[in-house]
């Protein structure tokens, strides 16, 4: 077992617009405050897949690229992104288990404002 250096990422509304264009997910709850509130959300929220992309960035920062064989999570709590350049911050922490048969499991903890936003986030990587 080894504890990995946590990674913190800033997420702004401009990032979400860029991600919507790149990914094809134009759901307005990720861009429009009024629409988000109309469906009961506290405000504009990040795409779940945006947060998962940050998890992948953290994992590859630890392992190098091209080593992930499995990556999964549940989307349990929305990441609310306020307007303005400051945005919000998402932190990805991880603990790598002992390697077995050339792979190791990284148990992750993904938080925003001190609260966990993903359920059971986990990566399996080639080591």
């Amino acid at each position, binding site marked *: 077992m080894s504890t990995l250096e946590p990674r913190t*990422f*800033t997420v702004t509304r401009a*990032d979400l617009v*860029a*991600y919507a*264009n*790149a*990914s*094809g*997910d134009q*759901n307005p709850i990720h861009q429009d405050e009024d629409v988000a509130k109309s*469906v009961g959300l506290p405000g504009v929220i990040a795409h*779940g*897949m*945006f947060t*998962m*992309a*940050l998890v*992948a*960035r953290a*994992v*590859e920062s630890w392992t190098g*690229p*091209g080593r*992930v*064989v*499995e*990556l*999964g*999570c*549940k*989307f349990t709590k929305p990441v609310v992104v306020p307007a303005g350049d400051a945005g919000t911050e998402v932190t990805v922490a991880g603990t790598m288990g002992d390697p077995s048969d050339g792979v190791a499991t990284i148990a992750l903890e993904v938080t925003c404002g001190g609260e966990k936003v993903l*359920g059971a986030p986990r990566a399996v990587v080639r080591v």
Partner: protein
Amino acid sequence: MPIDQSLVGREFPSSAPREVTEDHVRAFVEATGGEYAGQVPPTYPIVLTFDAMFAFLDAEQIDLHRIVHGDQKFTYERPIEVGDVLTATLGVSGVRSLGGADIIRTTSEVRDAGGALVCTAAATLVHGGGAA
């Protein structure tokens, strides 16, 4: 269209073949604050599986705005590379109701131009029962 067990095991239209281009991967990487260095990031195949999901939603006349992403898991046979031409095919592995919502388990296979499996993407789609 009813969201029920009749969806399980049916085949839905595959996504149109999509070439993984450097420009698109760069845009995807930069949108999440990264710097493109030639590699395709692990969550990139969501672009393919979205294509397949849209085809599924369209075929079943399910409204995208009533869908919430419950979970996602990727299993990779190999890293995706720029130049790959990929197609995704979605299947429904289970449907159940919970608290007025329909929970649809999907599995999408992403294959390359030669038909080899590149990535399997399992996703749970939660379809709200009330007004969206």
